[in-house]
């Protein structure tokens, strides 16, 4: 009953080792180690001091969290520019909860911060999904709106470390087997989200939506629901980022998180997420964020003038995009040359 044509099966499998070596993640790990090694050789205190080791491992956690959310949004071929403002609102909300309700259970405050972020993300998502206005415009608007709310609310005040319960502050410095607990928590979150994005339907649907939005519509994939989901996730992670910021720095004013949105986009791109959506891994994003945060830590230690630091980050972003483009083009060529099964 079947039609018999002799057609070669297209052999697209690369060697396991080849795939490992080509992965963005490996390159990032190598670069992170190289950077840390280089910096420690010049300034041993960067790594081999009490504070050095801790800062190296815990500072990146904030950027990792918001970059994860940003990546989920970018994977759906959207962008979220409001994450810095959301982070600020969440941090201040948590701070004032502690100050206004002494003795409030810490989990409740954490939950409130995350929910506030999720709510602000929900607003973003609903606006993007139902107004059908590009997310760049919507979240540029909410970037300023949320920041404006923060400025109105916080005014000239700032969070004082005395507002925070000791347990919460110690959370920022707590270590387990020499590793900051914050990093462990964030690593678990990375693993959970990474697993979700690769192994659950909704995760794959998010990739599918960004890969071909028209097809998603024709298919009835539920692109509105998915868009809202991505923005809520991004908002919730930015909210969590605010809580981590509070735990680490124990202070903050109405300008907290300014410019974080671009760092988050940069981390996602350096981590291998295509700005047009559809591809990139959560592991890559986490490493990309860790790498960028480590650069910001290391360059001043190395005595690189602050003027140069931004340019270096910029070159890395352009480099990452160029690399993606080259990989993409060679992959297309290879696919074409292989000729597919005809």
């Amino acid at each position, binding site marked *: *009953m079947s*039609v018999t044509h002799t057609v070669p099966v297209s*052999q697209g499998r690369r060697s396991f080792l080849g795939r490992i070596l080509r992965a963005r993640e490996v390159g990032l790990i190598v670069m992170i180690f190289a950077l840390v090694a280089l910096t420690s050789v010049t300034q041993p205190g960067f790594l081999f001091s009490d504070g050095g080791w801790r800062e190296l491992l815990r500072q990146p956690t904030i950027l990792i969290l918001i970059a994860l959310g940003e990546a989920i949004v970018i994977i759906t071929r959207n962008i979220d520019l409001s994450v810095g403002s959301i982070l600020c609102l969440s941090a201040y909300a948590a701070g004032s909860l502690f100050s206004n309700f002494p003795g409030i259970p810490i989990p409740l405050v954490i939950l409130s911060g995350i929910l506030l972020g999720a709510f602000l993300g929900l607003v973003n998502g609903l606006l993007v999904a139902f107004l059908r206005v590009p997310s760049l415009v919507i979240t540029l608007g909410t970037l300023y709106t949320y920041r404006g709310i923060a400025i109105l609310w916080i005014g000239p005040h700032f969070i004082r470390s005395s507002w925070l319960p000791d347990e919460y502050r110690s959370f920022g410095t707590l270590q387990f087997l020499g590793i900051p607990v914050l990093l462990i928590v964030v690593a678990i979150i990375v693993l959970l989200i990474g697993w979700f994005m690769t192994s659950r339907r909704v995760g794959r649907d998010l990739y599918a939506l960004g890969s071909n939005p028209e097809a998603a519509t024709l298919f009835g994939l539920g692109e509105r629901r998915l868009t809202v989901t991505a923005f809520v996730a991004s908002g919730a992670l930015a909210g969590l980022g605010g809580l981590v910021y509070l735990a680490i720095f124990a202070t903050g004013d109405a300008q907290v998180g300014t410019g974080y949105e671009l760092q988050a986009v940069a981390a996602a791109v350096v981590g291998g997420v295509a700005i047009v959506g*559809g591809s990139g891994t959560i592991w890559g994003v986490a490493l990309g964020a860790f790498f960028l945060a480590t650069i910001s830590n290391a360059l001043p230690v190395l005595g690189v003038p602050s003027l140069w630091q931004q340019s270096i980050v910029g070159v890395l972003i352009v480099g990452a995009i160029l690399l993606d483009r080259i990989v993409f083009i060679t992959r*297309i060529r290879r696919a074409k040359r*292989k000729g*597919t*099964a005809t």
Partner: protein
Amino acid sequence: MNYTALLELHGVTKTFGAVAALVNAELVLKAGSIHAVIGENGAGKSTLVKIIGGLYRRDAGTFLLDGESVDFHNTREAKAAGIAVIYQEPTLFPDLSVAENLFVGRQPYTRFGALDRAKMRRETRELTQRLGVPIDPDREARGLSIADQQVVEIAKSISVGAKVIVMDEPTAALSGIEVERLMGIARQLRDEGKGLIFISHRFDEVFALCDVITVMRDGSYVATNLTTVTTEDEIIHQMVGRSVDNLYSKQEALIGEPVLEVEHLTSAGVFQDVSFTVRSGEIVCLAGLVGAGRSEIARAVFGVDPYDSGSVRMGGISVPRTSPAAAMRLGIGFVPEDRRKQGLAMTAGIQSNITLAIRHKLARFGFIIAPLEEPSARTWAARLQVKMYALDTEAQMLSGGNQQKVVLGKWLATKPKLLIVDEPTRGIDVGTKAEVHRLLSELAGTGVALLMISSELPEVMGMADRVLVVREGRITAELPRATATPQNVMYAATHAPEVAA
């Protein structure tokens, strides 16, 4: 045996604003059969497909599936009811693997709650093998040929248990072998008891493959024929439904000196050794199948695309390579194939679209303001009878026919010596089509040389003073008006040139 049809449409109507896209469509699809729906462009086939697939909702009429009335609000509902639509350009997710594309939205889980990739891989391999086209389940969909993408779509429709499979012009972008393969798969599905709707405009395929042929014209149902008892002539008659002669009114024009001279134009792998001339007042048609390289020749002449060797001269002056600006200065106008993407600034008004190519002439001290544009825009809009509310109406608000008039107006305003028109009447209603033909014919009457690309044979027959048939990048026949017939044009378009030719 209590026999009901798999899918029935009666009196189905769909209108968009004032435009009736579909009027009283009729279709009765039986299980285990392949049903062709054919008609000219704009006959309503695509609208019909979209209603069946749940993308549009009908305004009136009955739609029965397995004898029960259905009304789909979205594609998801149609799919759940067992309808699969395979579009001409398949809609896969390029970043996902073939297996994931097959299972998107309904991926199986292992008992640990993760995607069961092994199962997806296995079933994908089985399905594609069953269709005779094994495709690596792990490769990403990006880079698959259109034919293979269709196979993936078909495999997907089988695996969701679709009863009705609609193929919307699936063979348009396929090579000969791929078409054979697709037809084999279609027969296999028919023998398994599925109902197939096959949209096509290729007679040979329709007659070779289908059991029943439904003909549509201008959005309406015309007739349903059994393939075994009908003939191509009968189908053509039903499709056209009118005499071809009175549609195209070419006026006699005085043919003068050569305007465009193209010699030995070659672009490796695209077209080879193309030589022809177009004289003033003459309409020269490039005929041939889609993909033969006609548009590419026109684009090279106008300087949009590069070429490797050969020469293009306008009135004896050499036209520089890859410079549309220089081509325009030498008097060439170019109305492209896709007016939405290449011909118009869709969000700009009619006025700025018409004056776009002459804005340097209209500008004063480097500035252009609306009052400077208005007279020319008004003149051309009136002469071409563009139906509009105001000159600043956005181009995207106009109908296809009126958009095409605006593009024509833009180039006529430059007073070209040579106008290249690529598929000038594609997707335009019959009335406006005749107007466009009249305009082009008048233009030739004023001494403009016209190079026209058209895939519609009646249009070629009606308009051309000379027909150049292009096949696989070469001109295989040159036929003067007197001897050009649909038969010999079609023959030259599909057969390798004879030694003498």
